[in-house]
């Protein structure tokens, strides 16, 4: 989780990712962020996020995103 928070904080140091649950709904993340996050997750966790998992729900909070990463790691 810490590594993921580092990735997110690097992109948006002004956002509190531990509490924010509307990263997509509140237009905090844009398409560039998504591309960057997916690439960084790949290099950090060796996890490739497939297009079907690119949904607003999976990216609305750091918690949801981490759950996705864990799910993909188990597969």
């Amino acid at each position, binding site marked *: 989780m810490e590594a993921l928070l580092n990735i997110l904080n690097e992109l948006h140091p002004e956002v509190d990712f531990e509490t924010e649950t509307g990263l997509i709904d509140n237009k905090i993340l*844009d398409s*560039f962020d998504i591309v960057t996050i997916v690439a960084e997750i790949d290099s950090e966790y060796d996890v490739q996020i*497939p*297009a079907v998992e690119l949904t*607003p729900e999976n990216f609305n909070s750091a918690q949801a995103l981490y759950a996705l990463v864990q799910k993909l790691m188990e597969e």
Partner: protein
Amino acid sequence: MQTNILEYLEGSVARCPDKVAFADATDQLTFAEVSDRAKRIGSSLLAMNHRGGSVVVFMRKHPTTLTAFFGTIYAGCYYVPLDDEMPRHRIELIIKTLDPGILICDDTTRAIAEELAYPGKICHYDELVQGDINEEALADVRAKQLDIDPIYIVFTSGSTGIPKGVMACHRSVIDYVEHLCDVLKFDEDTVFGNQTPLYFDAYLKEVMPTLKYGATTILIPKQLFMFPIKLVEFLNEHKINTLCWVVSALTMISAFRTFDTVKPEYLRTIAFASEVFPMKQFKIWKSVLPGARFINLYGPTETTGICCYYEVDREFEDHETLPIGGPFRNTQIILLDENNKVPAIGDQGEICVRGTRLTLGYYRNPEKTAEAFVQNPLNTIYPELIYRTGDLGKLNQRGELEFAGRKDYQIKHMGHRIELGEIEVIVNMHEDVRSACCIFDGEKKKIVLYYTGDITTADLTAYMKSKLPRYMIPNVTRQLEQLPLTPNGKIDRNLLKKLYEKK
């Protein structure tokens, strides 16, 4: 001979009044409705005695926004598109540059508009569109209009921290539309899926041919560009067959292996601009759509959007890049070296553009205009302007133009043209910043900011967000005790680049 871009609209209204011209996910306007609204807006502006000046169109991205653009032109005025996603500081800088005119807002922008110290009159779109059409007044404007009169101003990044307003006229836009259409072969069955915002000039590629042929443009919701499967489903649902997108929007789809799940069913023409298409991603597109045409477009706002094209007509190796190709008809590209001479074939030179598509120059900025729009040094006989792009190019063995970098610190990032100097100026304006320098990691496409001063990276980022558009916010911001200097005392960008690569 056509002298006014509204003749495109009037032709389509006569041929296919009830066809949908512009739509988004929820709303749509037919050609007759577009014309009716545009004429009402134009008549309302004239009724307020506004003729020939600027009209700021500060509205969300929506089909009605386009009718505000055309209404402005009906009144003989030129529109200045702004967007509710632009930061306040930038909007204020632009408004300060403009002579007071009229600002058109909608429900989403009204509150912000009223807080701005706009020196002109603020009007709501819904009120202007209620006005009656005054055919006589509109005809009078038309009779006196010349094709060298301006129709819009778009603001681009300026290295001094102040955006530059590029002014285009009827004639340059008509020249652009005619030759673009010849190459891309649009027709009345073309269904465009628009990706680019309305506050630059890229949307002209879709909107003007839509008027010319009675085609259709669908404005794609911005949010979809984060979710590629939904995006491709949207393309299919609306039977979109033609794209003119920035490269990063296309690669976002292919890089996520979206095509494993869903494929575009109707696409037949894919034009792209603003950046080099990474070859691996390009090949994915080509393999999924083997029958489609792919056209690389190149050109700055100062030459009415684009000036060169290359239609992909052969296979490329992974290490190769797509060329810029050559100019559209009625446009010439001249390469010039440091001594204003044409370099030997294969040698590098600055890409300079000659032709009708040159815009009028920068709004109220004679110094910057004179730097970029200059006398053709190869012509010593009569006055003739060329535009110096600041881009470097060279001819390959096939005689095709290839992009070879920049003369200055301008970059292309996420489809946007950015002066790194503009970011530095804004950062240096903060009282707790001592010095700042921006570099660009071209490989990973990241803007990297180094700074010194008594402010945290979080606070500095929050500050930048209030001053700069989203796409100009550095992707990495790092604080240093001191910035490295060259022997001449300038900030050493090369050393910063090395420092960044080490991390």
